[in-house]
């Protein structure tokens, strides 16, 4: 089989790419190892709802049309949105791409359904293919769970739960596990604090309208840093910062440094990561006020850090039954046999342009701060596919 463009992955990024390829009359195929919206169907926990409100869930060819634009979609609704957006997309599901290599005409893809030749390739295989799990020597009696294994608290063993990581995933899981009656110790490194609502509007309304998410990758002071920024402490419907968790009874500890002789050792720098997050939050709210041209709105109580947070937790005492690793996700490029991945496993690209007809979509701050969010894909896909189409014309 030969196509001008092979798109790998039928998440919202691959589907958006297809819309712009179709608009430019480029013959293409979207290859998906599972089903459309595979990650949302199989790699998320039961209670998850989007942290982005429905009105922001706009994809090329589909937008939220339900009765609750200010609500937050559950996984069924997200799958539904992606399926609607996939209606006219040439997706081939159940096709696993196991290798992509250079060829004289472009690229040769090896797939579970046979080889495919393509002039150009769009990598839309996702930024979150594998949970990141630090390699520590955890005592065998403590069960270890990643966000991909986790479905709901009832599947965790009894006893306390150490949740490592305080970004969106970590705070959400910490809250629901604590509510289930299992005492949670939450290990927090650097994090991004956000209130759900600022001046009566969803904080993401502000991010969107004040232009924060539209900031371009080539105009940021420190792109490397921006691309490594953890996800914000947000959950559907309410504020879930460290203060909210403390009020629920969650115990805060510092960043997990190591596990030594069966004990987890946490950094003594919790106060500073909280101070950094508080300062950054206030600067963000200042930007909103500046954009709105109004006097400052409400400011938040500084993060309450325990007077002396525990820095040692014995994992052999029975206090902790399981560890939930909410330590982030990484992409998987094990199938990519083109030397475009750096020593840290990141794809080397300039705004989604890898070079030689190879492109990427859906990576952190690919072209804009909002690149990984559903609402950020349309502008990115337009630009990236625009570049691809231009390349085809000039070749």
């Amino acid at each position, binding site marked *: 089989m030969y196509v001008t463009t092979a798109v790998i992955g039928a998440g919202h990024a691959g589907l958006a790419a297809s819309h712009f390829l179709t608009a430019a009359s480029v013959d293409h195929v979207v290859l998906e190892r599972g089903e459309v919206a595979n990650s949302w169907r199989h790699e998320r926990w039961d209670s998850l709802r989007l942290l982005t409100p429905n009105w922001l869930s706009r994809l090329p060819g589909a937008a939220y049309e339900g009765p609750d634009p200010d609500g937050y979609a559950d996984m069924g609704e997200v799958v539904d949105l992606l399926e609607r957006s996939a209606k006219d997309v040439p997706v081939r599901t159940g096709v696993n791409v196991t290798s992509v290599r250079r060829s004289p005409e472009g690229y040769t893809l090896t797939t579970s359904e046979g080889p495919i030749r393509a002039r150009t390739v769009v990598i839309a295989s996702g930024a979150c293919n594998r949970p990141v799990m630090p390699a520590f020597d955890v005592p065998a009696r403590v069960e270890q769970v990643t966000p991909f294994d986790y479905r709901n608290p009832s599947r965790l063993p009894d006893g306390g739960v150490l949740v490592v990581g305080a970004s969106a995933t970590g705070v959400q899981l910490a809250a629901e596990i604590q509510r289930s009656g299992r005492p949670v110790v939450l290990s927090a490194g650097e994090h991004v604090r956000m209130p759900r609502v600022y001046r009566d509007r969803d904080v993401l309304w502000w991010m969107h309208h004040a232009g924060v998410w539209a900031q371009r990758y080539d105009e940021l002071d420190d792109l490397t840093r921006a691309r490594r920024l953890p996800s914000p402490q947000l959950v559907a419907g309410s504020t879930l910062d460290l203060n909210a968790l403390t009020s629920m009874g969650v115990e805060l500890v510092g960043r997990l*440094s190591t596990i030594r002789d069966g004990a987890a050792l946490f*950094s003594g*720098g919790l106060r*500073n990561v909280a*101070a950094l997050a508080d300062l950054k939050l206030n600067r963000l709210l200042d930007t909103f006020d500046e954009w709105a041209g109004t006097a400052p709105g409400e400011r938040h109580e500084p993060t309450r850090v325990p007077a002396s947070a525990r820095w040692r937790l014995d994992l052999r005492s029975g206090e902790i039954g399981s560890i939930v690793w909410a330590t982030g996700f990484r992409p998987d490029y094990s199938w990519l046999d083109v030397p475009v991945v750096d020593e840290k496993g990141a794809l080397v690209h300039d705004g989604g342009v890898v070079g030689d007809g190879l492109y990427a979509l859906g990576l952190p701050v690919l072209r804009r701060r909002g690149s990984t969010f559903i609402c950020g894909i349309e502008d990115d896909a337009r630009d990236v596919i625009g570049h691809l189409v231009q390349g085809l014309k000039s070749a």
Partner: protein
Amino acid sequence: MSNGVNVQALLDAREVLKGAPEAAQFTWRASSKWQHGVHSTTKIEKFFGLGQEQSHKNESVFEADHPAIFAAEDNGITPIEYLLVGLAGCLTAGVASVAQNRGIKLNSVEASVEGGHDIRGILGADPDVRNGFNDIKVVFTIDADASPADIEALVAQSQKRSAVFDALTNPTNVTVEVA
């Protein structure tokens, strides 16, 4: 505007070392000699970095001892107090560098550092008490041409990039051998 920190040199070094991790490997060295009682003298002059042997302009000499209430001669500060010297020096250097980088003029920077220490640990009087500090508190008093929030951000960023803050707040593998 200058606080006397050559920030450009630091930023240049950051760019160069990004692509040369070997050159970024430094070894700091100290050598000490027992004098008498609990008094020892530690000298520091040479170190390794940027791929070769380096030297301070001058050798520095540090006396460590214990105060008279420990029935010692007090020829110098106690070893654990040197950690406070390191922390104060590191955080203050950080404040100055970050301020320089952010274009903030510093008029004065003072820090008081306190380490709470239950000495029953080192005396072996209570096996449940640790040997080291229980907690450390640093209070900065900074006069600068900047808002209170900007000054707090300087102090926060300086902790984030501090070698000694990291060394004190996180565990480090330490190997002690007999030659």
